[in-house]
């Protein structure tokens, strides 16, 4: 099994467009949209829904006012500033509640219960080049790292069932828990960056997180001609860090046109420079793997 995670640190560098192009170059691949907070690949692949699962994203505390005596004990215990007294009533701030259960355990009146957040879902289905697994975190819910783990488990199971040996993981932006869940145990991490000051700064943080988990990342510089000096600087930075630059892609409006048409760039404009570069990178990734 070859698992490739595509991440970026900074958002909007082209992770999803590039992962989608990879997925459409393969045959019988499994693609997992791990950006459960802003899932987009379904727009290009329009997958069927073959399995639907409920994901419980932690719990929230709820007060039963027929029991609450407003003793205020819980307000002192909560470390997330989620419980306060307002106008003679104990109030829980749902946004700050972390779902730790402590208030419900210490309440002498048993007036606090914990309600599961069960609005998030994850799915598996088929698309034109194989199978797709994706999660949808309900707005405002947390623990998306756990949902990413479930998406990956389902992707692994799906790959086994359909005899696929390639899983492409489209990761979320940032470097937090969902990103860590996306890269843990994969074979390769690709970081997609762009030639901006922010792009370079976030590339550094994304590379750090990969290295911390024992993975040597490689890099794609996307939209490189928007600032060629900055592209050079990124390539130089990668050289100093011993990080392979897999490819340098030009900016091309056709990538957005393809998205509007519900196609990947390699499907929509296979002979464009971007597509040719992406195919080269894809072949290269496979060659590296088959030598191991």
């Amino acid at each position, binding site marked *: 099994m070859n698992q490739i995670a595509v991440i*970026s*640190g*900074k*958002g*909007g*560098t082209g992770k*999803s467009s590039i992962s989608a192009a990879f997925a459409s170059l393969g045959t019988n691949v499994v693609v997992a949209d791990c950006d459960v*907070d*802003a899932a*987009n690949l379904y*727009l290009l692949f329009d997958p069927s829904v073959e399995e639907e699962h409920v994901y419980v994203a*932690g*719990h929230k505390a709820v007060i039963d006012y027929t029991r609450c005596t407003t003793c205020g004990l819980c307000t002192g*215990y909560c*470390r*997330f*500033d989620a419980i306060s007294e307002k106008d003679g009533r104990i109030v829980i701030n749902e*946004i*700050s509640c*972390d*779902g*730790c*259960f*402590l208030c419900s*355990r*210490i309440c002498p009146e048993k007036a606090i219960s914990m309600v599961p957040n069960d609005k998030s879902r994850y799915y598996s289905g088929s698309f034109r080049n194989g199978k797709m697994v994706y999660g949808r*975190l309900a*707005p*405002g*819910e*947390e623990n*998306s*790292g756990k949902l990413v783990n479930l998406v990956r488990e389902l992707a692994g199971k799906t790959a086994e069932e359909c005899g696929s040996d390639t899983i492409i993981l489209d990761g*979320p*932006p*940032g*470097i*937090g*828990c969902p990103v*860590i869940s996306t890269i843990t145990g994969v074979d390769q991490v690709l970081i997609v960056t*762009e*030639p*901006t*000051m*922010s*792009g370079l*700064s*976030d590339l550094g*943080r994304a590379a*750090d*997180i990969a290295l*911390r988990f024992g993975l040597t990342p490689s890099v794609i510089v996307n939209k490189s001609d*928007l*600032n060629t000096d*900055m592209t050079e600087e990124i390539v130089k930075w990668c050289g100093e860090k011993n990080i392979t630059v897999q490819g340098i892609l030009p900016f091309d*409006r056709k990538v*957005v046109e393809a*998205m*509007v048409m*519900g196609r990947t760039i390699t499907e929509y404009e296979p002979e464009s420079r971007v597509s040719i570069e992406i195919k080269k990178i894809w072949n290269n990734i496979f060659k590296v793997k088959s030598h191991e």
Partner: protein
Amino acid sequence: MIKIAVASGKGGTGKTFVATNLFRALTENNTAALLVDCDAEAPNAAAFFNTVRTESADVTHLVPVIDTELCTFCGKCHEYCSYNAIFILPPAKVIKVIEDLCHGCGACTEACSFGAVTEKPVRLGTVSVYNNNPMAPVIEARMDVGVMSPVPVIKAAIKKARNGKEVAILDSPPGTSCPFIQTVATADFVVLVTEPTPFGLSDLRQSVDTLRSMGIASGVIINRAGLGNGRMHDYLKENSIPLLMEIPFDETIARVYSEGKLLADTDHSYRKRFTDLYTRINALIRKS
């Protein structure tokens, strides 16, 4: 003080671009403003201002330390932990804290009747103040690499912003999950920056639905206008969402940003547009 959060579902649509330019336009116009970079996983705002860090404080939380001499391996702390951060094998007398999973809630300390659990602070990140120009202070939330959640650092940065300026601009993290919610929850108005592409629209819908369910007023800026298709305008009209500004896709703008410069400095017509944006937002806040 009014708080304006600049957010987007999709990453990379231009949140930081809008937040930094709006901030510059305001401070150049002698409006007492401060900028809070709440994108603690990828903080980039401070780098756009020629500024130096004047203050920095660690954000920590308390994680348990278990004294195995006092521990009876009863397992109650493990049972109290909602995050699977305590690993216990009673027959082998093994108990371990997995610090990366700990949220610092203190439930295990409360659970232990034998005094075996004490606590120590562990660093999650920093909140820094860049205040060499007191007319334009920048506060930055920065999560440490390897930490799971940026939320405690974001909370600490927003707390720090409680001082007597007229307006605080909050540069939000992307998405609609808890880091976003934590940032926008205290805002009087949210500016959603999007791009007119299918990905942009899909993520914008989710942001709009979330903010509506929270009862927070919002408006939209379309960045890179001219790319993609016209669906975005239809969506805004159908849902009566104010279109605050359109910024065309323009290689000059992209280049200015990529070099770490501010469009409000290099093109004064944009300084005026960002000042007008603030006037418009103020009117919308008064109306809501």
